[in-house]
């Protein structure tokens, strides 16, 4: 049953050094505040799982939280590279980063299989490209009825899934709206804990009968963090701050300017309950 906790307490209790952790949110509802709290708490040796690493994983990788990254597209959307990710892959700074690289279709199917309690996912993919040469978890199986050769990947089952949502009710039921990505799948696939930060806690979710809702008994912890997805966005609350994404390119290009920015904005920066506050969105 979902516990109402501070973000600080939830990360302290559920995220351990060496864990595999999936912070999901496909361009929308990216759990920035939670990722930054993990940085502040100094977690190490994490296997970070995420389809689109985005700025938050650039920050976590650059601050040395990760020893491995499982991903399918690692760029700054519409802007260019994730420089900290590249520096880790190309130069091992601040530490070597093992990568397990997939396509979106593979990861989406692997989360789906994880949520469904299956050991693997089957899909029509990885045809004619070189990803199976470099990623050892890609296999192929034959359809037992038609003989068609199809791709197979192991289910994704992170130790901990962390997502951001619009709201939870007081019982801890959670509502996602808009671009819902793989957040529900990631939470259902998690082995130990599903942590959800939300814009607000409400008396009633006011959701349609088929809205994307996680019942409280599959949620481990709910933390109220207004602006917790900033500078990504929360449909119905605030817009994506595209200029922050553009500015990140210059900030992150250089190790020193990156470290200085992190020191100012994250390490000395806002604590959980005011995550978006100094960005003017809370």
């Amino acid at each position, binding site marked *: 049953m979902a516990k109402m906790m501070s973000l600080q307490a939830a990360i302290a209790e559920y995220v351990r050094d060496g864990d595999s952790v999936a912070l999901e949110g*496909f*361009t*929308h509802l990216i759990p920035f505040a939670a990722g930054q709290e993990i940085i502040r708490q100094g977690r190490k040796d994490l296997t970070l799982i995420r*389809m*689109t690493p985005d700025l938050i994983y650039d920050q976590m990788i650059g601050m040395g939280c990760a020893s491995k990254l499982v*991903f*399918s*597209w*690692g*760029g700054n*959307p*519409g*802007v260019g*590279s*994730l420089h900290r*990710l*590249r520096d880790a*892959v*190309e130069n091992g700074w601040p530490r070597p980063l093992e990568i397990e*690289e*997939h*396509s*979106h*279709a593979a990861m*989406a*199917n692997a*989360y*789906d299989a994880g949520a469904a309690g299956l050991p693997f996912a089957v*899909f*029509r*993919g*990885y*045809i*004619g*490209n*070189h*990803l199976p040469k*470099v990623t050892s978890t890609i296999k192929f199986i034959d359809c037992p009825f*038609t003989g*068609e050769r199809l791709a197979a990947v192991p289910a994704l089952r992170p130790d901990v899934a962390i997502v951001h949502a619009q709201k939870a009710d007081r019982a801890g039921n959670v509502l996602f709206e*808009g*671009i*819902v*990505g*793989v957040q*529900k*799948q990631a939470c259902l696939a998690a082995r130990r804990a599903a942590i959800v930060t939300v814009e607000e806690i409400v008396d009633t979710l006011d959701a349609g009968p088929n809205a*994307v809702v996680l019942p409280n008994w599959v949620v481990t912890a709910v933390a109220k963090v207004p602006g917790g997805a900033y500078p990504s*966005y929360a*449909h119905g609350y605030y*817009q*994506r*701050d*595209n*200029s*922050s*994404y553009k500015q990140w390119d210059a900030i992150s290009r250089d190790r020193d300017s990156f470290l200085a920015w992190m020191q100012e904005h994250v390490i000395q920066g806002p604590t959980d309950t005011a995550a978006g506050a100094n960005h003017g969105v809370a």
Partner: protein
Amino acid sequence: MASLEYTADEMMTIAASRALWNGAVCFVGIGLPSAAANLARLTHAPDVVLIYESGTIGAKPDVLPLSIGDGELCETATTTVSVPEMFRYWLQGGRIDVGFLGTAQLDRYANINTTVIGDYAQPKVRLPGGGGAPEIATSAKEIFITVRHSRRVFVEKMDFITSMGHGDGSPRDTRGGMVGRGPTRVITDLCVLEPDPETRELVVTALHPGTTREQVQEQTGWPIRFAGQLATTEPPTRDELEVLRDLHARTRKAHAGQS
């Protein structure tokens, strides 16, 4: 009528937009493909169905999205589904007429590299990776690619194939119709290329107005072939240019306004 002034980029986007027909179901990559697909929707193809991998089906954005999942896409869509559903029911389900992709590199068989330059384990340049493209490239009924023409992009030999074009030129294994025809058109700022029906090597089939064969060869990393019947692209119309410029102006204003 005085001839219109326009840039090579504008010609590229407009030529790319014309490749889409009204009612086409288009899985849209971010950047150049998104600009072309939305221009098509705002000009000759109002009923084109734009699908972004973030799950938005039938998006009708007023400004171009910076990411594949800007709020604008969801707000204007017919519906928004989860990402697993998008890749399973909508892409793999065989419902996409055109996958519209960009790329960092491509070779003469329109294979795409967006993963790495140099050795995978010791990369010279680490690119973002495949994202949706590896399966868009094979599941969509056909693929359009739009990219700026240069020797850095049009390379003789690629270190990595992220998304299959025509492989080594062998006929495609279509797996009972569930694998598409692959790239049928590449639209650059210089020309339009199409695969030779026999060898599947890319051949220049149309030059944009003012482009020479020499310019295309200059920017291509292999000895490029030209079609026997080499066409000249129709220059942009006043309407196309106006709609495109308005779209870019609205986009600049919208993205600047969010800070």
